[in-house]
């Protein structure tokens, strides 16, 4: 799809943005029940390695690897979700962080998947963008439905007060496990897509910082509405690209226009500032994160805001 429309660079940017959106949704599901996971990168790794084993070692087509990867990640999610039931807050953060590290150690020491050399020559999937174009609207549709379903409301109420939710007759254990497993499955899909687009991965690909970045997408975008993860992931992934484009435009300005004192300094400064290699990009991320937490601790989009601006839905008005 879009073969003629997009050049390779834009295509690759869009693919990584899309994978980040999927990863952000994987964090959003357990977060909806109040579970904060730093381990989503670990589930991505499970999905990525499983899918790559399926396509490379068993010769299955990508779609099969993709489904198996997501499924296995989901099962691992439920398994990790069990101990996660008993603990919350800082303990859950530490548990998911520990899980993510364990996955890394296993990937590093398991020679079947390349060990320290990394998993090489994974079959390239040229339809990654098409998968994303289908998967992301599907996720948004699903979360829109979830928001208005009894299950979604149960998840919200667990987020707000677990004991109260339990007293109301909500099956807290099942709902939380479901949320954790579903989140892990979505992360597995993201991982499978990543592996077959990058065609190489090693144990450090899905590291703790990746888990932190995924958390960041949702927190910056806004965790109280299902549009937040989309917005946050797109914003943070595309921001450096946008600035890079600005720089290219800046370079189009003829040098003769800029060849006198104040303008040339301004030009040099902007030129330097808009050059976004990785370290600088991450520094800007960090600053955004702190400023966000000071000014808008609930993220860019909140549910109340959406409610205020949304049109009344057919047949029923908002209270």
């Amino acid at each position: 799809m879009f073969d003629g429309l997009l050049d390779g660079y834009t295509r690759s940017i869009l693919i990584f943005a899309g994978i980040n959106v999927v990863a952000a949704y994987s964090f959003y599901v357990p977060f909806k029940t109040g579970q904060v996971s730093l381990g989503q990168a670990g589930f991505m790794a499970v999905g990525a390695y499983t899918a790559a084993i399926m396509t490379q070692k068993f010769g299955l087509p990508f779609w099969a690897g993709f489904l198996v990867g997501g499924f296995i990640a989901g099962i691992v999610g439920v398994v990790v979700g069990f101990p996660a039931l008993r603990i919350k807050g800082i303990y859950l953060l530490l548990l998911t962080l520990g899980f993510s590290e364990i996955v890394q150690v296993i990937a590093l020491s398991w020679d079947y998947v390349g060990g320290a050399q990394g998993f090489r020559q994974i079959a390239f999937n040229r339809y990654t963008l098409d998968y994303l174009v289908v998967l992301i609207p599907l996720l948004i549709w699903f979360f829109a439905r979830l928001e208005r379903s009894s299950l979604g409301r149960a998840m919200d109420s667990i987020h707000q007060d677990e004991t109260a939710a339990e007293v109301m007759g909500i099956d807290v254990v099942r709902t939380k496990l479901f949320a954790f497993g579903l989140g892990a499955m979505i992360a597995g899909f993201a991982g499978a897509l990543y592996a077959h687009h990058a065609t190489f991965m090693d144990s450090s690909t899905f590291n703790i910082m990746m888990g932190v970045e995924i958390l960041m997408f949702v927190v910056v975008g806004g965790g109280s509405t299902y549009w937040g993860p989309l917005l946050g992931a797109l914003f943070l992934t595309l921001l450096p690209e946008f600035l890079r484009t600005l720089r290219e435009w800046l370079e189009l300005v003829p040098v003769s226009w800029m060849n006198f004192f104040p303008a040339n300094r301004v030009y040099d400064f902007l030129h330097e500032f808009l050059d976004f290699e990785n370290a600088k990009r991450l520094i800007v991320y960090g600053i955004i994160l702190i400023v966000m937490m000071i000014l808008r601790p609930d993220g860019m989009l909140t549910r109340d805001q959406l409610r205020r601006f949304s049109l009344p839905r057919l047949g029923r008005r908002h209270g």
Partner: protein
Amino acid sequence: MIYQQVINGLMLGASYSLVAIGYTLIFGVLGLLYFAHGEVFMVGAFVGLYLVLYAHANIYVALLGAMVACAALGVAAVYVAVRPVAKDRPLAPLISTIGLTIILQNLAVYIFGGQQVAFPETIKQTLYTIGPITISSVQLFILGVAVGLMVLLWLFIERTKIGRAIRATAENHETAALLGVDVNKVILVTFMIGSGIAGIAGVLDGIKNSGVSPFMGLSAAVKGLIVMLLGGLGNVFGAMIAGLMLGMIEILSAAYIGTTERDLFSFMILILILIYRPTGLFGTRTADER
């Protein structure tokens, strides 16, 4: 052989303890998982390195300089990422300090490059043999500084007025404030002490591995978190003992089982503790009771 491994374990554990002490002090006073602590450790190592390389300072000046710089960094962290952030959202300060982590790590990559920088030899290498154990002067120095620091800190917390204020604040913010403790000052002092100790630990780590890298903070942070949990959140004495224990466990498992399994072991311990004994080995309360 086993004695030698015990010494190595103590060496490794001492640096874990020093990092974990800062974590646990800050957690005790604020209930905050202070993510940037590992990066403070890394900054300390670089400050020490630059003092040795460019100011030709001796190792004591380097340690002192790293401590002062990191203490200042700790204070800055409070003003930038802790105090202005909304108190009623438990996630907000955690995320703002994650932001600080990312900034510090990548500033270091930006300034120093992504490579490991060699730490010059500052202590003359001599080997001492006592019975079955061989210990070098460097190891002796690191152990001595670490243990000395821990004893000093212990005295500070148990014997001084401000130490008592820290303990009172950790017990209960409101009550401490009612009794005349300046809670904001206590928070500042806690960050200063924790960060200063992390700075020293960073320099010691640089000496031990004869190298410093912008990425050394992350693994120190993760190990520090495990140790904090093992010792019980907010329990300073627990963090000291648990650090030595974890160092010992890692060295012994690396020596007798295998080096890749070493990290697996520490994370398994983390998860088992989380599931079966979230109060830690010596802890008496959990975060929920705060």
